[in-house]
């Protein structure tokens, strides 16, 4: 654009100069009126008495001017469009000239790096924009040798942000902000990379990294959890085959253990499938209206034997008029998992309390289910992870003593059951004092 613009400008200037000389010679005495008439002639040339070649020239110049203006307008629109796209792009971009100055960048760049407050301007050294020595060294390297580089950076301002940075050399010479073109003139520089600039591209890959970490943990956990019962089954089977089968009393005991482990395995596989379905939102919820108090009583009664065995006091209370439209069986599963956990993580003499009450959230009537225990509690830094599959407080995979074989999936299921109903789960806990889980569910199914 700039070359053709310059060319057209030069043409216009030349034509003007020629025109001026010619008019001075031949129409000097005609005066200003005549000038105006000549120029107006472009509009109504038939009325004016002017030499034909002059009129042709005027027409030509006017035509070119119109074209130029239209071209300029198009360019402006295109620039605006490009600027808007650049601004909307979630990918961070920065164009650096060979002096290391940022010629161009978009807001995503400073947002991703968390350096927006410095309000650095285009035309300034690139480190003022990135404020990251790793990125600045990468850009400098590319400017030096023209070889593309890529790496992953984690801006210190964010706890869990991973950026994939790529810096590519730009072979073609870029105009500097002040020198404006003229890069051909210095002719020096060896190799295209040195003469050109560099383009830095930043992609946010945090969600991918998080997913990878979850998957890694999941695979590690699931193999561990599945291996434990399998090892036990294999061990007892081998002992049986080695001759223990002939000792009836012993064989009976071993087979009993094998059955228990197999059941645990089956339950775990069942829960895994269940969770996969919940996560994929493929479950059909069997919505119906039921009394919350009745459900609370059922669950508490079911867990009374376990609570007694552990020496834990278990109580439930709910308003008899409280009703909920939801998948009763799923809500029962949710409540059971919470009560089960509460009992398992509370030592003898402790107490687990189940309560339900009406509570509106965001002007939506709902039911709040609270399961509170006086157990060992959960450290604050682990609270946001306990809903992950197989996550166990303490980080270790050791089982709590006398545990009856929880799958490590209970809370993940709780969370997903609440979410498929349009509800949510909150947790408060103090290590050594106990935990409180609150599940809020909308009183009526969405869209009904």
């Amino acid at each position, binding site marked *: 654009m700039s070359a053709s613009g310059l060319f057209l400008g030069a043409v216009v200037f030349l034509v003007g100069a020629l025109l001026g000389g010619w008019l001075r010679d031949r129409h000097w005495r005609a005066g200003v009126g005549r000038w105006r008439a000549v120029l107006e002639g472009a509009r109504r040339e038939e009325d004016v008495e002017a030499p034909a070649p002059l009129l042709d020239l005027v027409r030509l110049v006017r035509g070119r001017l119109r074209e130029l203006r239209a071209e300029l307008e198009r360019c402006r629109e295109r620039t605006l469009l490009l600027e808007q796209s650049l601004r909307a792009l979630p990918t961070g971009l920065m164009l650096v000239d060979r002096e290391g100055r940022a010629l161009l960048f978009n807001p995503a760049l400073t947002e991703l790096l968390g350096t927006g407050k410095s309000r*650095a301007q285009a035309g300034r050294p690139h*480190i003022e924009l990135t404020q990251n020595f790793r990125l600045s060294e990468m850009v400098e390297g590319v400017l030096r040798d023209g070889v593309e580089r890529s790496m992953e950076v984690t801006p210190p301002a964010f706890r869990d942000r991973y950026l994939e940075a790529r810096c590519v050399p730009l072979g073609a010479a870029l105009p500097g902000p002040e020198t404006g073109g003229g890069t051909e003139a210095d002719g020096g520089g060896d190799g295209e990379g040195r003469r050109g600039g560099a383009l830095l591209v930043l992609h946010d890959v945090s969600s991918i990294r998080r997913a990878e970490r979850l998957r890694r943990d999941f695979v590690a956990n699931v193999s561990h959890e599945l291996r434990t019962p399998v090892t036990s089954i294999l061990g007892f089977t081998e002992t049986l085959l080695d001759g223990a089968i002939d000792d009836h009393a012993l064989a009976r005991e071993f087979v009993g253990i094998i059955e228990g482990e197999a059941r645990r395995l089956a339950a775990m596989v069942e829960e895994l499938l269940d969770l996969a379905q919940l996560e994929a939102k493929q479950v059909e919820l069997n919505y119906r209206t039921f009394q919350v108090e009745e459900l609370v009583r059922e669950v508490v009664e079911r867990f009374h034997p376990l609570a007694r065995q552990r020496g834990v006091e278990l109580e439930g209370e709910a308003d008899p008029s409280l009703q909920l439209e939801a998948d009763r069986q799923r809500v029962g599963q949710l409540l059971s998992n919470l009560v089960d956990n509460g009992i398992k993580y509370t030592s003898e003499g402790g107490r687990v309390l189940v309560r339900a009450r009406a509570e509106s959230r965001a002007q939506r009537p709902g039911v709040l289910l609270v399961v509170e225990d006086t157990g060992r509690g959960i450290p604050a830094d682990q609270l946001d992870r306990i809903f992950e599959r197989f996550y166990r407080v303490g980080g270790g995979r050791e089982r709590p003593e006398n545990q009856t074989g929880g799958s490590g999936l209970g809370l993940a299921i709780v969370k997903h059951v609440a979410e498929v109903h349009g509800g949510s789960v909150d947790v408060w806990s103090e290590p050594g004092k106990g935990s409180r889980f609150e599940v809020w569910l909308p009183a009526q199914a969405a869209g009904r």
Partner: protein
Amino acid sequence: MPRESFNAQLEGLQSTLLKMGSRVEEAIQAVIRALVDRDPVVARAVVEGDDEIDRLQHEVEHEASQLIALQQPLAGDLRHIVSAIKISGDLERIGDNCENIAKVVIRLGGQPYVKPLIDVPRMGELARSMLRDTLEAYVSRDVEAIRTLPERDDEVDHLYSQVLRELLTYMMQDPQTIQQGMELLLVSRYLERIADHVTNVGESVIYLVTGEHVDLNA
């Protein structure tokens, strides 16, 4: 020498300082992570990284003294150069404190903590965010955001005395915890010093922009 090249040199000085600042910021963050995760590998990387911070300080000093010697700068330019020297000094001290913390992590050798670390990483994160804002103020020449540095420094000081009390209680209850308690005490002391140095950097930035001498550490 023409003004243009002088400006380019000033910019170069500022870029070197920012590079140093970014390294120091990462050192704070890395050492806190090493501390929380009890990770001696990360800690060792912090110790090694401190050499580069020291080298950058020498580079800043070299560039600055060259500018002074060859250009006889005045007023704003001189302030620019003088504050760069001061800032690089404080950044270098922050780097040293990070290195000290890293050495504690290495000495502790991955042993579990007597208490979960909550306030100590919080101190580190506070100091790091103070440095971030100060560096951004340095670039934008907008010092309004760092006028609140004293309050944030007070918060770090407050956390420091809290950690101190808490650790003392642990150590009095159980002499077994004394060795670790002392190390953690040192760590919080280093963090408190880091925040003080960040505040000094803030003072230098305010001096650079407005020419006024303020005492944010008062």
